């Protein structure tokens, strides 16, 4: 079977993955719940964040250190997300078929971003250092400092997002817009500004996620595809009734992936995850933690 030590190691690995997926899924859900579209370029945002972070942090780039990389990648992606929305989503937002059109435009955006990364940084894979070095002894288990920092930063980011959505005027307006655009306009809310902001926040979270992914795996221009798939599973599995729903689902997916990797093997794990997702869709179409409909 599995020894207790191994169990703890696999479980903690699962929690780290879960935290990463939660960050990605929350970003994906920020756009989906607010604008009602699925942003297929979210994975490319993750890649772009990783490369911008590398450019700032790595000795092969500016060599300014990882903290500078995190800050610049997050801020740059925030601006890039707004630009992306202005160019590829906003011109079509009044069309009745915006959901389908945005599939095409965000996929086109993905291709453009990935090609641009290829042209700027080349196809050779790179890797980022991890945020935090060494190991920390938690008594029962020693875990890499990088894992601890990842979980802490994600927790802080999601807590900040929760505070923003629940406690600030703009955040509450954003939750309101996600329910009913006409009601929001009736109440005097500047809807296009909130849409742009949602895209910016979503992309900033993707940029941050990119830095973490770049520290865990090799960076390639298409490095965002797998995380995007996982985030999609998370969003469907968890539902998006509340912004916390994908967080629970992300931890679940992370743990399942980790244990499945151990017991079933790396290549069967995606199949296991999809099988669970489809099984959940049979039994509870609205997701494990709430409704698919765009509510709060």
């Amino acid at each position: 079977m599995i020894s207790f030590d191994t169990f703890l190691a696999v479980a903690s690995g699962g929690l780290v993955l879960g935290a990463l997926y939660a960050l990605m899924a929350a970003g994906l859900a920020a756009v989906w719940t607010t604008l009602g579209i699925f942003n297929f370029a979210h994975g490319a945002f993750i890649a772009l964040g990783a490369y911008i972070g590398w450019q700032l942090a790595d000795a092969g780039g500016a060599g300014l250190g990882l903290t500078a990389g995190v800050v610049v990648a997050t801020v740059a992606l925030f601006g890039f997300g707004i630009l992306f929305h202005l160019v590829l989503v906003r011109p079509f937002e009044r069309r009745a078929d915006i959901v389908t059109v945005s599939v095409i435009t965000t996929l086109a955006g993905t291709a453009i971003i990935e090609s641009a990364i290829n042209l700027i940084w080349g196809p050779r894979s790179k890797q980022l250092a991890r945020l935090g070095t060494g190991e920390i002894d938690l008594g029962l288990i020693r875990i890499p400092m990088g894992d601890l920092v990842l979980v802490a930063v994600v927790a802080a980011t999601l807590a900040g997002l929760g505070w923003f959505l629940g406690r600030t005027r703009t955040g509450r307006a954003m939750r309101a817009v996600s329910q009913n655009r006409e009601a929001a306009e009736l109440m005097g809310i500047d809807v296009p500004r909130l849409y742009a902001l949602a895209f910016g926040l979503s992309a900033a979270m993707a940029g941050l996620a990119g830095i973490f992914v770049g520290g865990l795996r090799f960076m390639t221009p298409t490095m965002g595809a797998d995380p995007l798939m996982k985030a999609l599973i998370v969003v469907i599995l968890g539902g998006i009734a509340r912004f916390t729903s994908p967080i629970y689902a992300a931890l679940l997916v992370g743990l399942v992936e980790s244990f499945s990797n151990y017991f079933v093997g790396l290549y069967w794990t995606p199949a296991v995850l999809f099988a669970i997702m489809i099984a959940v869709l049979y039994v509870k179409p609205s997701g494990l933690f709430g409704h698919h409909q765009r509510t709060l």
Partner: protein
Amino acid sequence: MNRTPSEDVILAVSGMTKSFGALRAVDDVSFAVRAGEILGVAGPNGSGKSTLFNAITRIPFGPDAGTVLLAGEQVQDLPPHALAARGLARTFQRETVFQTLSAVDNVIVAVEQTNRGKSMRGNVLLAEQALDIVGFPATLHNWKASALPVFLRKLVMIAGAMALDPKVLLLDEPASSLTPDEIDRLRALILHLREMGLAIVLIEHVLELLTHVSDRLMVLDQGRVIALGDPVEVVRNPQVIEAYLGVAA
């Protein structure tokens, strides 16, 4: 009903035109409304009444041509939230509210956009005031909008519009799907809002309500204004009768 509203025009719309393909949904419509005046808008289904409101407020689309003067300022190119900030509020035929928010939270969302409340406490007070104005029961302030009956949801929507402290209120068929009793209460509310000095443009299918509260009545047919004036005279106008009943029976 020979009220003499104050002479200052708050909202002046002229040459408003909106086409969908070959269909001229709104065709060169002009009207003005003064503070403390109710302008009724009638017309058969598809005559362009709601499209007129949509084109004025740019929710969800603006006009092809035409100007809108709000308190003397040209506003036809402003986005919906900027119009709301300048005092042009509207409601929809369907109760358009945030279903998962409570009645008072719905209205707070609107208050927050105006910066009038200063603090959360101030926002709550202003929202409660707006709900009081429309006669929403104080005991139900914390009920989720989705749990409220249609009439109360409509009151929440109107309170949301009132929370913007508007000069002009465009009401799009507020009486639709209401019971006769509720329509009576709505009538009293609309008259109360006029007493407060609002300029009101009221689209309505319930003709009896419309002729009772309107100071002037405008009738649209196929996007054009076919009559505008004293409600009693307008409903006797042969062109209006024909538009409503088809070619004289």
